[in-house]
């Protein structure tokens, strides 16, 4: 890598966002750190070319999400082996943000990898359907159907969050 300093500067400016996205996707700190590392390895390997392309942000996003999808497919954890509705931690106050965060985190963990990715891309990264399709390397139709199924599943898993997960009549 000729421009190691440039790579470090790029990463330093985005590490917090990258880490947050990885945590949303992976669901725990250890897996999120692994995801960030494997994404940065890819970036570093191709940094000379990527930096010349002028859109390293798009590349890092694509690398992160694709790494997440492919790596989680191979390491489907035992959480998927059993089924139980999301446990409601004794909801004392429906408006309690901490409880809502917990419910959403638990519900996200029950989605398929692709569903989780489209939810994070759509509602956290605020990307259009076309950009999500580009990031994930799938069709716009797949993005729409996965978004619809993901929202339906979130509603089923966490009815307390129904106000957050109305289906927005397809994605942009």
């Amino acid at each position: 890598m000729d421009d190691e300093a440039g790579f470090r500067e790029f990463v330093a400016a985005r590490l917090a966002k990258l880490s947050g996205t990885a945590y949303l996707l992976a669901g725990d700190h250890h897996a999120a750190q692994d995801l960030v590392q494997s994404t940065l390895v890819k970036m570093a390997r191709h940094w000379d070319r990527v930096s010349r392309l002028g859109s390293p942000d798009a590349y890092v996003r694509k690398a992160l999400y694709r790494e997440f999808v492919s790596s989680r497919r191979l390491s489907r954890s035992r959480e998927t082996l059993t089924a139980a509705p999301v446990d409601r931690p004794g909801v004392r106050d429906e408006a309690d943000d901490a409880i809502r965060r917990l419910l959403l985190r638990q519900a996200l963990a029950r989605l398929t990898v692709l569903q989780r990715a489209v939810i994070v891309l759509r509602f956290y990264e605020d990307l259009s359907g076309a950009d999500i399709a580009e990031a994930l390397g799938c069709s716009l139709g797949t993005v729409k159907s996965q978004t619809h199924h993901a929202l339906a599943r979130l509603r089923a898993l966490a009815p307390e969050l129904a106000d957050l997960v109305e289906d927005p009549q397809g994605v942009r």
Partner: protein
Amino acid sequence: MMNGMKDLLAEIAAEAMPYDVTDRAIRTARRQRRTVWAASLAVATLVAVGLVAALPLRPPGPDGPTVASVAWLPRHLAPVGSTPRLPSGPVASAVLAYTQNSGATTLLTEDGQRYALDGAVRAISPDGRWLAVTRGETLTLRDLNGTANRTLGDGIKTDVAAWSADGRWLALRTGDADPVSQRTAVVDLATGREAGTVPAGRYGRAYVCGLRDTPELVLCAGEDASPRFDLWVIDGTTGHQLRHETVDPSAVLTDSERKADWVVRPGLPDNTGRLLPDGRTLVVRTFDYRADEGVTIPDDMLAADLDQPDEQPRRYAIPDPTLGKAHPNPDGSTTNYDTGEFRHGLAGVDGGIVIAHLVPSGRAERVAGLEMLDTSSGTLAKITTVSGDIRAVVVRGQATG
């Protein structure tokens, strides 16, 4: 409304700490670049001298060695209509539990009866007597042959890490999913009491790979930038370290695998090592880095002997999942997603590992069969054909998760 979703996601994302792995990523990238050309050369050399065929043991044909007995598993498994709920009184020992796409979970017992279950089955003891079920962060142990129910965890996220082969001892992990913050407790099921604990973080990122009858915990962890992995044997009652060994599987790896630091990763969620009931054979999964742009896929299995850590591990070939079509990346490289078919280990049992074979089905996967990897013969044989929308199976054995 959706702004609420965005805000909530942002709050969760803010719980992440910046994972500053930049230095490690740069070092790994440098090493991979060196490996790419070296790997091509190495493979060509191996083919030329005819060594490739000698590396992994391929499953023999129908006339090959016999498979260790797992006669307690059914030959065929399919969902049935309605099933009665699991009664509170004694029933026969469990064989397996399965979950359908609908979320319904069913327990199958040795006498062929099926019972509907509440909660998520985490593990079934090797003798089929104990059933571990979680609801939220509470873990309940149910004595199927009696009426005892034991609730463990006191509201802290608790899960089964391993059973001893004799079913008496149970290793529980409590706390966050990160092993650094997990406490491990060894419970004596004869009394229901904790016999001892290992404080969180004492062995870094090591995971529980097994529990001997003695009871001794076996912890394992992959090493950074190396195919080696570390093993610790811990006295389960005092938490004291009895042994620390490093296993180097390099001799059974290809040249390119040897240089890649993710070949053996016992800590991956589905790749925790599994100790077999003999108390000395530890099986871990290897990972194969097959595409230049970063598709790592489950590969073969390695069996190391804890009592002879200096001996090279045995390697068992597992059929490779099929890679899907290549998707282009902005820099001109491509990514091949796997097609969704894969295998993963379920439990260590007498003579080997029971493996689930999953195939794509709709938006997820379904279990197509249960297989047995016989670690004596290297045979991988289908034991149970599975039909219907069964998406997950838990079999009895020395579960680790």
